């Protein structure tokens, strides 16, 4: 009796095993593909592990950290004025924009405000670094999609902006120009006229990009309807900047908070797009670049005269307290949570960088897309490695 039962059980198990084997044989095994850390599309050292079924992504996981420099730890052993040299290197394409929120946070704790002219120049340089940053994005976008020509146009016109930044600050990439209470120097002579010229060139560049890339059928078919991020998900993941606005969320920190910057003195528009796809994200960035040139133009016309430095003590000790300041950086919301203990340097600085949040959505958004779309979605999310890893 038991014998029979055992045999039945055994045969049942054998049948199950045969079934299982058949299933295993029929089910094609996926392939794990390492995109990066050395890969042309990750412009830096981001590694994305994707599990593929054919060319379709079943599962994707970015692996950051190849560029972690530990800035949050390093800030704790620097004085307040020295921190700007570090944070310059977070988003290295728009360096000046990294300094501004930190300086503003320190000023908030010290309860001082930069004089109007300094605010104006800060805003102008902020927008210039946005143009330098996003201008390169627009060119790079073409490369990611296989069009090699736009990137050279982007480099050509970005060069003018870098020259301007260099002219004003002395540094093309890492200006380290912002000071607590104002700026290091005033603008050099002739800078304003030159800037106006360059802004005109950049508007032409934007139009050129619109014609060359955004109007292209292939470009549109590659990006439209790909990588759609609904507004709800975007907010959950803390996407910011153009990525958030492309999902139809009307949120721009330049407009929606009161900071001692000159954005409320000019007439400008926050662009949004209802689609939430890759095309929307790229399109928003293009419009914002053009908008930035207009902002700069208006600011140049209305720039007040006066000192560029408020009265600050020689040795800067920031009073005890906590402050959070975030600004609308080229990549998105960049913020610093600064904790001071009344010392020469900060006690703790939490750096909230835009790309970290923007890339954390990758596992969600890459599921089920094709390999070429992996690249276009990553390109449209637009990250900078230094901004992910800090």
């Amino acid at each position, binding site marked *: 009796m038991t014998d029979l039962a055992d045999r039945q059980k055994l045969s049942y198990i054998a049948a199950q095993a045969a079934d299982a084997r058949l299933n295993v044989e029929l089910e094609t095994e996926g392939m794990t593909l390492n995109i990066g850390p050395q890969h042309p599309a990750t412009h830096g050292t981001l590694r994305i592990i994707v599990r593929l079924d054919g060319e379709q992504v079943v599962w994707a996981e970015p692996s950051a950290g190849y560029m972690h420099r530990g800035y949050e730890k390093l800030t704790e052993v620097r004085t307040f004025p020295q921190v700007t040299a570090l944070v310059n290197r977070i988003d290295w394409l728009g360096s000046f924009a990294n300094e501004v929120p930190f300086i503003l946070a320190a000023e908030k704790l010290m309860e001082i405000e930069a004089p109007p002219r300094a605010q104006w120049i800060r805003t102008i340089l902020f927008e210039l670094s946005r143009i330098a940053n996003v201008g390169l994005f627009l060119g790079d976008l073409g490369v990611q999609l296989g069009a090699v020509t736009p990137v050279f146009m982007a480099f050509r016109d970005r060069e003018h902006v870098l020259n301007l930044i260099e002219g004003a600050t002395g540094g093309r990439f890492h200006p380290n120009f912002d000071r607590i209470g104002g700026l290091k120097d005033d603008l050099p002579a002739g800078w304003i006229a030159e800037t106006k010229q360059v802004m005109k060139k950049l508007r032409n560049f934007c139009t050129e990009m619109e014609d060359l890339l955004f109007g292209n059928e292939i470009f549109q078919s590659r990006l439209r309807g790909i990588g759609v991020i609904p507004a709800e998900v975007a907010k959950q993941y803390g996407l910011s900047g153009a990525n958030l606005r492309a999902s139809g969320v009307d949120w721009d920190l330049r407009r929606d908070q009161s900071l001692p910057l000159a954005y409320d003195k000019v007439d400008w528009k926050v662009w949004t797009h209802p689609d939430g796809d890759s095309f929307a994200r790229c399109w928003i960035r293009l419009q914002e670049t053009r908008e930035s040139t207009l902002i700069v133009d208006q600011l140049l016309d209305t720039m007040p005269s006066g000192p560029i*430095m408020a009265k600050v003590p020689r040795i800067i000790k920031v009073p005890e307290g906590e402050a959070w300041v975030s600004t609308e950086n080229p990549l998105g919301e960049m913020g610093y949570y600064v904790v001071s203990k009344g010392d020469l340097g900060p006690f703790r600085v939490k750096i909230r960088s835009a790309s970290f949040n923007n890339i954390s959505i990758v596992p969600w958004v890459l599921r089920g897309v094709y390999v070429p779309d992996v690249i276009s979605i990553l390109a449209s999310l637009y990250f900078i490695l230094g901004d992910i890893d800090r």
Partner: protein
Amino acid sequence: MSDDAATQELAALPGDALREGVVQALRDALGDALLDSLIKPNDDVWVRVRTDAWVQAGHVLRDTVGCDYFCFLSGIDWMPSPFGRGEDDPTAPAPERDSTIKQGYAGGDTRMQVFARVTNLSKHFGVTIKADVADDAPAIDSWIPVYAGANWHERECHEMFGIGFNGHPDLRNMYLPTDFEGHPLRKDFPLLARLVKPWPGIVDVEPLPGDDAEEGEAS
């Protein structure tokens, strides 16, 4: 809210009434689990909740208060660094340092805290929420069910502070090698480069433009 004139003035800027509303909403929902709160006029609001009410507070912030935008989550170690600012002479014996733990806004009882920030995008204000984590076994519930984006932030916080997040699916290291020992952002984790060679630039005074120029050159 008490002073009518002050309210009038503040209404021009988004928020202080809203911020009080936040605190009120949290108090209504959490009761005594809301431990402390601080509103700085025209600036920001800080709240501190009990560790076990962390997730519930997240739900309240998201659904009742409308802060559905997740900004960041991180940790903070309130212990003063035993290594100072890394300016000590490595050959001399270490100087005595005051190691009393003093927490920041909205108080605290433990050495380490978790804090996060969420934003209400339609009404343009944000909330910084803090919670204590126990000294001996620092852990707190994961916020992933509330804000999916907390995933990476909790991973980062875990590796940097050693704070556990209950219910997090995947607390792998994000930046550091898998077998890395220690939690770099804890204050008792030494910055070795500084211990070997203290940095000469700890005090730097730069000549300011304008009035101090001559003095700057002279010094």
